C-alpha cells in the first residue's frame, strides 16, 4: 500500500530475494498491478518456488558451516576441505525434512517470525550493494506484496523457509555485501567468521530481533521469543552436526540397516561391526567380580 519503493528494496534485499533473482536469473512474470495475491496468482507460485530454493541454499550454507567439505559453499566461506562434508552427507535434506515435517514448532511462533520480517524488521535501512537487479517499481511492489502476504499468513510458509529468511536477514545485517554474489542466499555468501557472527546474534537473543518478533505475538505468547531463538540457534548447529555424522543419508527403513556406509561413519572412522557384539571383554578390574555387600 503506502510502502515507499526504497523500503521495498531494503526488505527484498534483506530477505535475500533480490540477490536470489540476480543469481538465478529467474524470469519473474511481468504481471501488472492487478495482483490478486491469491493462490491462483502466478506470482505466488513463482515466489514460493523461489523461497524454497532460497531456503535450500541457505541451509547448504549452514550445513557446511558446521561440517565443511570440497563443495563451493565451503570455498565461499573460506574453509574448503578435500574430504567429504555435509553436502555429501545430504545434511541440507536432513534439515529441510526435519524442519518442515517433524519440528512441532507452533505455527504461531513461526508466523510471528514471518510477520516480524514482513512488518518492518527487514525494512531497516541498509546500504543496498551494487549488482542487484533493476526491477521496475511495479514489479518490485508485486514481489513485496506477495512475499509479505506469505509471511503474514499463518502456516503459509514451511518452517525451513522461515528459518532461512531469519538467517538471511541477520546475514545482511552483519555483512551488507552478502546481499549479492555467488549462490542464492546472503547467509551462504558469508565468510566462516561472519556466519559465526550471525549465530552470536541469535544466541544472544538479538534485542532488535526479539522486540520485532515479540510485537507480532498474541499476548499469552509475548516474552517467549528470546528463549526460543536461543534454542533454535543451538539446535540448528547441533542438528547439522548430528545429521552429518549419523546414518540418515543411507538408511534403509525397510531393512533397518544402511544401504551403504554413510559419509559421517567414514569421517569419524566408525565401524559398527556386526551390530550384535564385539570381542572386547577384557576382564574385571583387579579381578573383582563382586563388591562387598556393605
Amino acid at each position, binding site marked *: 500500500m503506502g510502502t515507499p519503493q526504497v523500503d521495498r528494496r531494503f526488505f527484498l534485499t534483506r530477505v535475500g530475494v533480490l540477490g536470489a533473482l540476480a543469481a538465478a536469473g529467474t524470469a519473474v512474470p511481468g504481471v501488472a498491478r492487478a495482483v490478486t495475491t491469491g493462490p491462483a496468482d502466478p506470482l505466488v507460485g513463482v515466489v514460493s518456488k523461489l523461497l524454497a530454493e532460497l531456503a535450500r541454499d541457505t541451509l547448504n550454507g549452514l550445513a557446511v558451516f*558446521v561440517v565443511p567439505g570440497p563443495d563451493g559453499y565451503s570455498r565461499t566461506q573460506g574453509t574448503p576441505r578435500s574430504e567429504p562434508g555435509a553436502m555429501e552427507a545430504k545434511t541440507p535434506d536432513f534439515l529441510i525434512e526435519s524442519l518442515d515435517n517433524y519440528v512441532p514448532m507452533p505455527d504461531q511462533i513461526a508466523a510471528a517470525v514471518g510477520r516480524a520480517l514482513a512488518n518492518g524488521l527487514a525494512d531497516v535501512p541498509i546500504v543496498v550493494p551494487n549488482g542487484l537487479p533493476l526491477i521496475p517499481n511495479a514489479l518490485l511492489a508485486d514481489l513485496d506484496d506477495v512475499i509479505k502476504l506469505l509471511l503474514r499468513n499463518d502456516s503459509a510458509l514451511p518452517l525451513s523457509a522461515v528459518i532461512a529468511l531469519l538467517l538471511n536477514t541477520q546475514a545482511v545485517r552483519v555483512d551488507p555485501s552478502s546481499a549479492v554474489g555467488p549462490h542464492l542466499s546472503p547467509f551462504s555468501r558469508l565468510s566462516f567468521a561472519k556466519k559465526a557472527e550471525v549465530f552470536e546474534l541469535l544466541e544472544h537473543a538479538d534485542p532488535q530481533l526479539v522486540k520485532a518478533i515479540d510485537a507480532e505475538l498474541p499476548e499469552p505468547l509475548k516474552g517467549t521469543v528470546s*528463549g526460543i531463538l536461543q534454542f533454535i540457534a*543451538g539446535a540448528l548447529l547441533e542438528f547439522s*552436526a548430528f545429521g552429518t*555424522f549419523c546414518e540418515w543419508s543411507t538408511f534403509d527403513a525397510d531393512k533397518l540397516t544402511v544401504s551403504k556406509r554413510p559419509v559421517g561413519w567414514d569421517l569419524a*572412522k566408525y565401524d559398527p*561391526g556386526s551390530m550384535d*557384539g564385539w570381542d572386547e*571383554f577384557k576382564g574385571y578390574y583387579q579381578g573383582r567380580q563382586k*563388591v562387598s555387600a556393605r
Partner: protein
Amino acid sequence: MRDVIIIGAGGGGAVAAKELAAQGLDVLVIEGGPRHAKPREQWSRLENDANNPLTGYLRVGQEDRSKPAAYRELPQNSFLWQVSGVGGTTQHYFGNSPRAYPGVFGGYDGPDAALYDVEHLFPYSYSEMVPYYEWVETTLPVQTAAVGTKESVYLQGCETLGLPVQKTKTTLEASYRPQENAILQPGGTAGKTNDANLLKFPQATGCTFCGHCFQGCASPAGAPRNLAAKRSTDNSYMPMALTAETWAQGGKAVELVTDATVTKVRTEDVRGELTARGVTWLDNRTGMVHTEDAKVVVMAGGAVENPRLWFNSDLPNPNDWVGRGFTDHYLDWTFGVFEENVGSSKGPASAARTDYPGYGMNMNVGLMPGIEAFTMTFSDSGIRGQYTNGRGMSGEWDGKTGRLIGPELKDVLGHGLDNILNVVSIVDDDVSPINRVTLSTLPADENGPIPKVRFDNRHRTARSQRNREFLAREAARLLKGAGAKKVYRMDFPALPLHVHSTMRMGESEKDSVVDHSGETRAVKRLFIADNSALPNSVGGPNPTLTMQAMVTRISEHIVTRYFDGEAWVAKGSPVLSTDSRISRRLVELGL
C-alpha cells in the same frame, strides 16, 4: 473399581507395578508410548532411527512415528532427553546403578555433612534405605561391570588421581571403580567374538559388548525378553509385573494399556479431604477418551509430565512447589583425544566412574558418531575461536570451552571415534525454586497445555557452580593421566537427562509436594513414584537405583496404608527378574 492405577511404565512406574502386582492387587498401568514387543525386528540400533528426538523410536511422543513428537517449550539453549514407552527413559539409559551418597539422607553426621544440599535431604536415613537398595539390587540384578578397552583407559587415568578404589556398595569417600550396573555380566561367547552367528542365546548370555545401550538393548539375539543384557524396566520390572501370578504367591498380573495418555487425575471430597478417585485417558490411536476409578492413583510420568498432569488436572498447589526444585545434575562434558585406540564405540556406554561425595561424579561415555558430534557442538560458551557468550572458560583443559564448529569439528572427530574418550561430569546440584516446570502459553496439544521447562544455568547456586568447576578439573586431570594428547571441555548448556525432584519428597510442608511415604500432601490416595519424588539430586550419582529403592518403599506404604497388607522387604527375599518362570510365561503370552 481398580485397586491401583499407575500412570507411566518407565523407570519408576514399572517398579510400583511389579511390587503391587506381587501383593495381589488389581493394577492397571497406562503408558503414553508404545510397548516395543519385538526389539530385534523393530530396532535398527542406529542412532538417527533410534535417538532422533523428533522421529526416533526412542522419543517422547505417541507410538505412530509419522505424527509429531510431543512438544515442550524449552526457553533456553538446552536439550531435554526423555523417552516414552514401556521402560520409559530406561530404554536408552546406561544401566549404571550406584547408590546415592549417604550425605543426602536425613540424620547423616559424617565429617563432610555440610558439603551437601543440606536444606533438601531425604526425610529418612541412609540405613533405613539400605534394605530397599538391596531388594532392587537383587531384583534387577546389579553387578560389577565387566571392563573393555575404554574402561581400562579410564581406570588408568583414575590411578593417577591419588584416589582409592571403591570396593563396597556404599560410597564412603572420594574414590573410583568400575560401575555397579544393571547389565548382566557376559557369559559364553558374549564379549569374546565379533561373529553375530556365535552371539545367539544361549551360546551367548549377558552383555555382548555391542555398543548400543543408547539405542536400546536387544542382545543377545534370541534371548527371552527378561534375559536381555541391560535391565531397563522393559526387560526387568515390566516382564515381572506382566507375569506376577507365576512367580509371586498370591500375585496377580497387571493389565497394561499402551499408547494411551492420562490427561486428568480425578478427585472427590471424602470427609472433607480431597481424595484421588481415578483417571481419564486418551487412546492416542483412536482418539477415544476413557475413564476408570481406583482406590489409589500412582503418578509415574516422570519429572516433566507429572507437574504438567498435576496442573492440567487443576489439583491444588498450596506451597507453590509443584514443578519447582528441578535438579538435572547440571551436566558438563570433557573429552580427550588419544593417539591409541581407546575403544569408545564398543561395549556398554559407560562402565567406569569416579565418585566425589559432596561434589558429584565423573564417568566415561562411549557413543556413536552422530551423538558424539552433537556433544562436540553443544556448548553454552559460543563457538570456539569466534565468540564466547560471556563464558569461554580456560583451565586444565586445552584452549577455551565452546562449540567445535567447521574445520575444528572435522579435525577432532577425524582422529576417529575410537581415539576419543569422553567424560561426563554429573554435578551434585542444589534444589533451586527457579529451575522448574510450568505450563507453557504456547498452544496446547491433544493432551492439554504443554510443559515449559526452565533451567537458568547462569543462576545456579554457588555450590552447584563450585561442584561443576571441580569436576571439570578432575575430568581433565584424569584424561591427561590416561594419556590424552589434547583435552577439550564443552561447558554444556542444560542437558536434562537425569531429571528429578519436581514433585519433591521432603520433611517440611513448606517446600515439598509429597511426604516421606510418597503420598501427596494435597490429595489423599495419590502417590508419586518416579524421579520427580526424589527429594534432591541424590548427590550426583545416577538416580535410577535410588529412585527404584524409594519406589519400593512407597509401594509398601500404599499396601500397608490402604490395602491392609504387611511390609515385605525387611522379611522377604526378592525374586530375580531373570527368573525362568518369568521367561516361560512371557513366551506363553507371546510377549
